[in-house]
C-alpha cells in the first residue's frame, strides 16, 4: 500500500497542471466561439472565474501528490493530538 500511495503521488502531481492546461484550452475555445460583444465578455468572465478558482486547488493537488510521493501519508497519526 505504501508503494501505491507513493506511485499515485506522481499521478496527482501530474494531474494538477494537466487540469489547468485543459481548462485554458477549453476557455480559449469557448471564448473564441462566442459571438463578439456581450456574449464574448460574459464567456470570458465565466472562464476567468473558473480558472482563478481552480489554480490554487490544482496547486494543492500538486502539493498533496508531493507529500504522498515523499511518504508523508504512509503512517497517519493515531489521533489529532499527534499533529
Amino acid at each position, binding site marked *: *500500500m505504501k508503494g*501505491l*500511495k507513493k506511485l*499515485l503521488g506522481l499521478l*496527482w502531481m501530474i494531474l494538477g497542471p494537466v487540469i489547468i492546461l485543459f481548462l485554458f484550452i477549453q476557455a480559449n475555445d469557448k471564448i473564441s466561439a462566442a459571438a463578439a460583444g*456581450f456574449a464574448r465578455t*460574459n464567456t470570458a*468572465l*465565466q472562464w476567468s*472565474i*473558473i480558472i482563478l*478558482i481552480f489554480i490554487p*486547488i490544482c496547486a*494543492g*493537488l500538486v*502539493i*498533496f501528490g508531493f*507529500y*504522498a510521493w515523499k511518504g*508523508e*501519508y504512509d503512517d*497517519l*497519526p*493515531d*489521533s*489529532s*493530538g499527534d*499533529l
Partner: protein
Amino acid sequence: MLPTENKAAQSITQVISASSLGTLIEWYDFYIFGSLAVIIGQQLFPSDAGASALINTLAIFAAGFIVRPFGALVFGRLGDLIGRKYTFLLTLVLMGGSTFLIGLIPSYSSIGYAAPILVLILRLVQGLALGGEYGGAATYVAEHAPAGKRGYYTSWIQTTATLGLFLSLGVIVLTKNLLGAGTFADWGWRIPFLVSILLVGVSIYIRMKMHESPVFTKLKAEGKVSANPLKESFQKRANFKMVLLALFGATMGQGVVWYTGQFYAQSFLENTCKLDFNESRYILLWAILFATPFFVIFGSWSDKVGRKWIMLTGMALGVLFYRPIYQYFLDATNVREMEATQLLSTSEPVVERVLIKDTKDSLITTTVTKTLRNGMTYKESGIVTITDDVLAPVPAPQTQIRDITLSGSTYLMVIALVFFQVLLVTMVYGPIAAFLVELFPTQIRYTSMSLPYHIGNGVFGGLVPFIATLVSSFSGSTPLSGLWYPIGIAALSLVIGAVYIDNRIDRTVTD
C-alpha cells in the same frame, strides 16, 4: 436514567437544537435566493439585458458559494481565537441581516445599477457568513458529544440543509398562494427574505443562552489557545497535509454527490426532461422527506464501523449509477417516441399573440395539451414570429415540448431514483462532520476543518449545476455529458480516500 445522565442528555439536546436551528436558518436564507433568482433578476437587474439578468443573478449565486472558503478562513480563525459560541452567533447575525436587507433593496427601476451592486455585496456577506457557520456548529456539537456518539449527534446538523430547503420552499409557496402570482412577482417575493429576521431573532435568543464549548473553555483556561490558527493550520506541514487529505479524499467527493442529488437532479428533470415545474419540485420534496432520517442513521452507524467506508460507498454508488439513473429520466420523459403508439387525445389549440416591444412584429404561440394512454400529459407549443413585412413567407413554427406530467408508476420510479441519489447524499454527508472534527486538534479545529469543507461543498459542489451545464454545451455532447463532472470528481475523491484515509475513530476531541 440517573439525574446527572438526564441532565447531560438534556444538555446535549439543547446544544444540538441551538446549533441545528441556526444552521437551518442559514440554509433557509441561502436557498430562498436560489429559488427566487428569476424574480430577483427581473426586479433588481436591468430589464433590457433580457436573459443576462438571470445569468448575472446566477453568477452572484455562484459568488455566494465561491466566497464560502474565505468565510471559513475568517470565521474559522475567529472561532479558534475567541471561541465557538460567539463566532457562530456572529455568522448568524450577518447571514440573517444580509438576507433581510436583500428584501428591502429598491428595484432597478428606482435606483438603477445600485440595486444589483447592493445584491452582490449582500450575497458576498451571506457567503462569508455561511463559510463560518457550519464549522462552528459541527465543532460546538462534537466538543459536547460523548466519544461513542459523535457521529450520531453531529449528523443532526446535516439534516438542517434539507430542512432549510423545505422551509424555504414552504414559505415561498405559502406566500405565493396567499398573494397570487402577480402580486408575488411584483413585491411579494420580498416577504420570504423579510421573514428570515424573525427566525434569526429566535435563533439568537436560543444561542445566547448556550455556554461555550467545554473543550474550548478548558483550552482557554489553560492558556493554550492558538495565537495564529491560520499559520498553524496551513504552514505547519503535519496539519496542512491533513487539510489536503480531507479536501481531496472526502469533502470534494461529498460536495459533488450532495449537489448532484439535491440540486442537479431537479434542474435536469425540469430543464432537460421538460417536466412540469411543480412536478419536479414535488418529486424532490418526496425524495428528501424519505431520505432525511438516513443522515442520522449513517451518522450513528459511523460511530460503530468508522466514517471512511460509509462515505466512500456513497461516492462509489454515485459513480456507478448516475448515468443509468439519468438515462432512465430521459427515456421516461421521451414523449415524442411514445406518441406514435400511446397518443390518446389532443386538446383544442390555444393561440396566444404577443406584440414584440418596439416593433410591429408578433410572436404567435399555439399550444395543445396531449394525453397518452399511460396517463402522461404534456404541452406541445408551436412558436412563430410574424414580421410586419406581409410579403415575407411565414416561417415554419418551432415546436417544443414542455410541462410533462408523469403517470403513476413512472412518477413513483422517478421519486425512487431521486430518493436513491439523496440516500447517497446522506451516506457521504452524515458522517463527515465527525470525520473532520476528529482529524484536527482543538486549537485549530474550527479553522482547519472549515476550509476543506467549504472548498469541497462550495466550490466543487456549488459549481455542479454550472459546470455540468457548461460541459453539456461542448460540441458532440449529449444530455448526459454534464454528469462526467460529478462522476469524475467523485471517482477521484473515492480513489484518494480509499488509498490514503484511515478508518479510525478518534476517541477524544479534547486533544
